[in-house]
């Protein structure tokens, strides 16, 4: 697989021509299963084919059970400078429900080992609104997380996708889906606790200490170009978005024959405007209406003036210098508000 990804990189080395790379991310699936030597190979190839800025953020997504002290030292030595650790919960019954093989102690130890190995930019993932999760359990998860003093926390409510095993269970009643009111309360508790501990809630699901916002995640919401390599990976160049086939064998076979197997979606002006609205409203820096006007000739403030006045009046949003951003209450409804502000197709 690593060979195939290296080969795909060569095939697509012009995708980001003249772009400066300031973030590299090993994610999706379980990249922490890679050997440090394989990561080194991939990073060297990136240096060779692209313009990489000094101070580049290099993140590795990892499961706690893959990370022992020696592995961490090795990852650090080949150039990984940020870890995103999928802790999810500190409660064993919730971890079992999520089919995670690690336990709470492993999670804690792994963050401490990472510190010892020299990592000074660590993000952890937490999941809330789990089936039957109480407010107290959730507060305890947050407390445990804060004790580890991560620089960054990403936190998601359990989302049941219809095509998955969970989705089928939910449909047959085998799985109780937490209702939105509980999810809303958990998110509110999270925001309150983390802000009190000095984290900035800079995107619906992301919190960071000063200076530690994820460059990588932020670039998606700022509409930067990106190249994704490997099965299922998505790429975007401001004109289209494309995604590689998900099936590993199909991917390998195609790359072997010198072709990148992808599907492509050309984005219309309305698509781009809508994507900008949907991603930017999730962030603390908000939706810049001047940018929309200059980039896409779309005057959001004019087109949606009544609606915008309404959400400002009801304290879902604020407007400063043509930047529309959501209040705490509004962020919980970011999707609805974005959808209401979309250009109709």
């Amino acid at each position: 697989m690593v060979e195939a990804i290296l080969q795909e990189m060569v095939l697509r080395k012009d995708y980001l021509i003249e772009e400066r790379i300031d973030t590299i991310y090993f994610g999706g699936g379980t990249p922490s299963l890679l050997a440090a030597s394989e990561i080194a190979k991939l990073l060297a190839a990136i240096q060779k084919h692209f313009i990489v800025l000094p101070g580049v953020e290099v993140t590795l997504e990892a499961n706690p059970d893959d990370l022992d002290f020696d592995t961490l030292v090795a990852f650090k030595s080949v150039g990984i400078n940020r870890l995103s650790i999928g802790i999810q919960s500190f409660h064993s019954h919730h971890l079992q429900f999520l089919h995670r093989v690690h336990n709470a102690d492993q999670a804690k130890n792994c963050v401490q080992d990472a510190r010892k190995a020299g990592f000074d930019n660590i993000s952890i993932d937490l999941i809330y609104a789990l089936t039957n999760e109480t407010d107290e359990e959730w507060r305890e998860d947050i407390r445990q997380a804060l004790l580890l003093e991560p620089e960054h926390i990403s936190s998601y409510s359990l989302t049941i996708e219809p095509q998955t095993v969970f989705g089928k269970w939910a449909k047959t009643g085998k799985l109780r889906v937490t209702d939105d009111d509980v999810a809303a309360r958990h998110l509110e508790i999270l925001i309150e606790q983390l802000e009190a501990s000095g984290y900035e809630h800079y995107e619906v699901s992301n919190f960071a200490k000063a200076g530690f916002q994820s460059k990588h995640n932020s670039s998606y919401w700022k509409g930067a170009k990106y190249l994704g390599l490997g099965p299922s990976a998505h790429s975007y160049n401001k004109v289209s978005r494309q995604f590689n086939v998900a099936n590993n064998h199909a991917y390998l076979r195609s790359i072997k024959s010198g072709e990148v197997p992808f599907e492509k979606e050309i984005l219309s002006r309305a698509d781009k405007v809508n994507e900008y609205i949907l991603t930017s409203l999730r962030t603390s820096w908000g939706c810049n209406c001047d940018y929309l006007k200059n980039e896409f000739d779309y005057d959001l403030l004019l087109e949606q003036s009544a609606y915008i006045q309404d959400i400002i009046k009801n304290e879902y949003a604020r407007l400063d210098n043509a930047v529309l951003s959501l209040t705490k209450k509004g962020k919980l409804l970011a999707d609805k508000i974005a959808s209401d502000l979309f250009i109709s197709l």
Partner: protein
Amino acid sequence: MENIRNFCIIAHIDHGKSTLADRLLEFTGTVTDREMQAQVLDNMDLEREKGITIKSHAIQMNYKLDGKDYVLNLIDTPGHVDFSYEVSRSIAACEGALLIVDASQGIEAQTISNLYLALENDLEIIPVLNKIDLPHAMPEEVTDEIVEMIGCKREDVIHASGKEGIGIEDILKAVVHRIKAPKGDPKAPLQAMIFDSVFNSFRGIEVIFRVVNGTIRKGEKVKFVSTGQEYGADEIGILRLNQQPCNEISAGNVGYLISGIKVAKEVHVGDTITNAINPGASLGGFQEVKPMVFAGIYPVDTTEFEELRASMEKLQLNDASLVWELETSAALGFGFRCGFLGMLHMEIIQERLEREFNMTVITTVPSVQFKAYLTDGTQVDINAPSEMPDPTKMDYIEEPYIKAQIISKAEYIGAIIGLCMDKRGIILNQNYLTTDRVEMSFEMPLSEIVFDFFDKLKSISRGYASLDYHLIGFRESDMVKLDIMLNGEKVDALSAIVHRGKSQEWGRKLCEKLKELIPRQMFEIAIQAAIGQKIVSRENISAIRKNVIAKCYGGDISRKRKLLEKQKKGKKRMRQIGTVEVPQEAFMAILKIE
């Protein structure tokens, strides 16, 4: 004339009328295999989907028997109670009828009422036991029913299967041998009865008629008796699968007329066509068709009002029974108050607006026509809840009553009587058709039939019960207006006129249903039902607290954008009432109450 046979088919929905008609057309070579589209006669998409005939049609077949050539005119009839007047005119245009009964189902209520109509018109009835090939066919029992009903001999009942092509020739022979040739004088002054009209966007209205006396000739001037309008007979002809122009059509035969008429309203089914210079008398039996059910139709998007008006006008070109006038609603703005023949007709109009004209419309709670008598001695018709007079000025109110005939399996009698009593019905009598099937008749208010009666009847009888009804007049009733308020604002489009004894229950159920149908919004919504100033029920819809999907990174953005676009599209089918977004289907909530 002695070689002409005019006949129609009387059958219940699903008893296989259309398939059997197709076989007759095939057997007589009227359609070739290549032209054979399943169920040729039902050529409106909607008709094919619902498997029923909405408009009647006619088609001519040639058939040779014992060395003689016969002309067989098959006059197709609509199969729904909403269109019973059209059925009566089709029947009046025939000398005979095929009574098609599903061998596994037996005779149904609608069939019986049409059968009585045919007997009243002295039609020769040819009973046909259809679907004889089905394993659960009960030919003996159903034959008993038929013999009992029309007093024929058992051997007169033809066994057939439209699907398998069984009995087709027997049917054709019976049509020739048993049905009388039409009578009439081709030399007398022209009298032709209109029994259908079809709209053709290129040629205008095609009038379908049966000549009773006299002869209609191409190029002559004709007159429609009820309207007094005169037209040139630009083109006349007979109806094969396609039209076949000819120079004259004489007494006994069926044909079409094209004379540049553009609006369906000018052509009344049941009217008499005569010669303008040498006129004959009216044939009689003509009635103006009156709407039975009224409802408002509004565009979901207020800017589409003019477009809706244009669409309604076009619809009216080919549906003379649709009537409407302008209506304004405080909640919905400009729209139309429409009169329909019945609930199916209403459904058809709404669907045609959406499919053929691409309109998204809101249909408000249907209502029957009430008559209010005021203290000052005047009388007003009430076609909409908003027209309900101030209670202090009202002396009393009358509502339309119907006589309903219901036929069912005996085991469901109890449930059916219970349902009819609950709908303010009075049972008149019950009559066993066979040991297992019973015919019941009730008097009940028409307004109760409008609110979901038919579906309930079907469900309590597991689909066995069939219903037919006709209007018997107006009776005094204690009716009140039930208002609905959203966040304290009265929404006129959600009001309904209901019986006082049931008004509290309706209010409560309507609030509950609306709570189900209106999605949670960014603020709390109070739904209240009121009679006059008195609040009789209340439900709250709590505000949505959270509507945001957790992850949104590179791979999620397209999918998420599409999801929110879908959400936005759903919103387009909603109407903003004050601050509340109300979905299209909520306006019909009262019809969906359990």
